[in-house]
């Protein structure tokens, strides 16, 4: 869309210096041990590293445990309705492309009730940083099966165990036309998480980051093995990928993967008994909706002239 055509819509350049505390909101009410805490810290660190202005940064979320996120960051935010964070974020970015917009969704939000928006937001490829905080369960409503719940996992809605194999958010996203940035990381890999968020934010286009997130209350065992045993984790590495030298000593299984290779990305994203983190795919040359939909700014006077020409066509 057009940016403002009044000077009152302009902001000034300033020399403020933001510290981590400048982004801290009220104390989060997540359960102790919830992976969301680590993700919040990583995001706040990113804001400070990138010196994003609190007043031009917006966090948008849906409904669920993770969707309380915007309340805990001292920026603008919109805590919307279940599954609909992406349409809200799309509107914000279309109206105000200069704002830095982050989207926080849970697995229910993104992969279930809002799955339609997921597909299309990926295709619009607006410049958004999208985080899927995936704990494999509905937490806020107390342990119902989510689309990413492992097959056989018992929940309150499927007490004999989840009937179907889970949806694969990475592969799904990699299958959508115009997907331009797809990465995976985990709440228990702080330096990798930070590096991934940094790359995602720097990406021009929609960056989709699935963050594996522990729920100590309802899915304490799902990620236990991955947390305890670094050997089952493969880290995708490449000069064009996500650089995380800090955790290289712990996660020794490294796969060199060129993130421009979509076929290899899809293969690596296939479900298997390994946990794969890193940058699966990136292409910054894909069309971005808010760029394509940039229109000239018009003053009221210009609009009146143009509208009058339209009225001429209908004049008697």
């Amino acid at each position, binding site marked *: 869309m057009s940016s403002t055509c009044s000077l009152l819509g302009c902001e000034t350049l300033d020399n403020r210096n933001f510290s981590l505390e400048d982004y801290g909101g009220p104390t989060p009410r997540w359960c102790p041990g919830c992976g969301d805490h680590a993700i919040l810290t990583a995001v706040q660190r990113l804001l400070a590293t990138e010196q994003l202005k609190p007043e031009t940064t917006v966090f948008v979320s849906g409904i669920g445990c993770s969707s309380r996120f*915007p309340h805990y960051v001292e920026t603008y*935010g*919109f805590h919307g309705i279940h599954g609909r964070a*992406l349409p809200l974020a799309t509107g*914000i970015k279309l109206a105000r492309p*200069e704002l830095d917009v982050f989207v926080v969704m849970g697995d229910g939000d993104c992969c279930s009730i809002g799955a*339609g928006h997921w597909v299309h937001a990926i295709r619009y490829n607006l410049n958004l940083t999208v985080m899927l905080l995936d704990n494999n369960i509905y937490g806020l409503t107390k342990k119902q099966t989510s689309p990413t719940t492992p097959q056989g996992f018992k929940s309150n809605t499927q007490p004999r165990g989840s009937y179907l194999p889970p949806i694969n958010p990475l592969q799904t996203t990699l299958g959508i036309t115009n997907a331009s940035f797809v990465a995976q990381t985990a709440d228990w890999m702080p330096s990798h998480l930070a590096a991934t968020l940094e790359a995602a934010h720097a990406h021009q286009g929609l960056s989709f980051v699935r963050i594996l997130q522990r729920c100590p209350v309802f899915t304490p065992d799902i990620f236990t093995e991955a947390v305890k045993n670094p050997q089952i984790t493969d880290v995708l590495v490449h000069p064009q990928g996500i650089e995380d030298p800090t955790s290289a000593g712990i996660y020794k299984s490294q796969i060199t993967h060129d993130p421009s290779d979509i076929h290899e990305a899809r293969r690596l994203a296939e479900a298997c008994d390994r946990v794969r983190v890193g940058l699966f795919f990136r292409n910054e040359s894909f069309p971005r909706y808010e760029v394509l939909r940039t229109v000239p700014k018009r003053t009221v006077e210009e609009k009146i002239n143009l*509208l009058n020409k339209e009225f001429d066509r*209908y004049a008697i």
Partner: protein
Amino acid sequence: MSCTPPSDSAPSTTAPTAATVHTLPEHILEILSDSGEGAQKCGQSFGAVSAKMGNGAWTVEIIPAEIQPPPRTPEGASGVRIRIGTDEVTNWGNRTKLVIAFNEQVLLSRHRVQALADDAIILIENMWETHADANIRQAWADAFAELSTANYRFIQVPMEEECLKIVDNPRRGKNMFALGLMSWIYHRDVEKVKDQIAMQFRHKPKEVYERNVRLLEAGIAWAQTHLDFRFDIPTGDVSEDLVVMNGNTALAMGAVMSGLELCSMYPITPATSVSHYLSSIFDDMGGVVHQAEDEIAAIGVAIGASYAGKVAFTVTSGPGMALKTEFIGLAVMSETPLVIVDVQRGGPSTGLPTKVEQSDLLSTLFASPGDSPKVVLAPSTIEECFHCMITARQIAETFRAVVVVLSDANLATGQQPFSRPKLQANWHALEPNLGPVKDGHQPFGWDAETGLSQRIVPGRLGGQYTATGLAHNEDSHVSYDPYNNQRTSAMRSRKLAVLQSTLEPPRVVGPESNDLLLVGWGSTRGAIEEAAEKARAEGLGVSSTHLTFLSPLQPGLKEIFSRFQHVMTVEINYSDEADDPYINEENRRRGQLSWLLRATTLVDVDCWTRVLGQPLSPGDILQVIKKKLS
């Protein structure tokens, strides 16, 4: 040529000595064809030309639900009714007096719904009578047997034969030939007709225009040689600049003028043409039409955009409104200003997608979780479709409110001339001020008296807050405090009462106190007022009033109603008839506005409603008045 069925008479081949000219204050005609034969284009052109000549005009499209329904079927009938008059025309009138039909089946569809006057003149394509296909010949004969119950005067016109002299595919030319017939019959200014054709084909090669003009002239020539009658509808004075367009175009232009810059929508009949027209002009005017992936995303994007800056809007119809209800609740709760246009159609469910109904009033008022007060406006003319967008946007901003504009299929596709708006810069939204926020300014700093608060948009230094659909306090912090919820619910509701305090009581047309008051809303205004006027001319004590604000309602209704013996709404939605089986005073489900008025005024407001999928006719309303007062 008398009113004998065509199967018994050959068309006249000799020119009548002189056509008799009937001068009339108004006339109603229809052009009917199979879908795709261009009757609608022809009819709308005729309406536009008539308006341009200074006649009052009102056009109503007759639209099949499918894009390409089977040819030669009553349900596939596609066309336009045009009512023209010397004075202003405000509705589609009663029965059609002249028809041009491209086949007998489409004619049957209108005959069966009693749309045609008993003495209507019918010009009909005669190729079917002698068609090679025996089934078609039989269908023709059967149709005329059915049509013979009326006293129509049939005139056979060899349209196909005449058009073949000019074009190879007469399916793509008959409508221009028909326009020629109509132009001659009604003394239309041929130059104006040609201008209209030129405008219609302005993006096509010149040959296309020329071919169409030849067809037009052939129609005129045929009429001149073969018809023994003409109608003259004297034109009134055109003292001011007028424009003629349909309601959806007017809505789109109103949206641009009001400074709305993002229209987020999903295709749905009959609302879509707002975005069609808007898409053709909006980019150049600094606006964006966003076609979302679904109805829910459409409103979500609009709410996101509104939250971030200038008010945005979405355009939809009944089923789309149903899908949007959860998001409407979010906009109400987060007090994000928003304009929603609902171009109503027949329901429930998919219902009658292309036809008119006024059935979304109550669902608009109440269909959202919890108490979600919103503003509802209803334009009653095509002119108001333009102007109401400016008011809607202003109210949305001032009251941080959701404003729903209820239009309908009748306004959406009808054409009517109206005063050309003299565009004013003050109609346009102001740019958001991104200056810093003063210390202590809360995102929901409700004024305890009015419930109003000052919105903060992102980008403003020191204004950071998180909008939320959860119950919240002044700082937009989530609050489950019971008294907070009671108080903030009151704050959101209070805004409607405050808005109502700025409204004037509705105008009563006719005597201020009387036997019967008709109450309407939306597109039925012209028909109701015309019927009431006719009734008064016959000595009946009838007045009428038309409501444009439905939430909050305009003030003073109870007092106005008290001055009348009877009060009755006239609406295009469903109500039980009082004397239907099982129906009694208590269980009778009433017209939506009457339901609302009874609840708010405690007056025994009766209703008369129809869901025929067509506009109301003044003649039918007149009958209702007579029955009510008998």
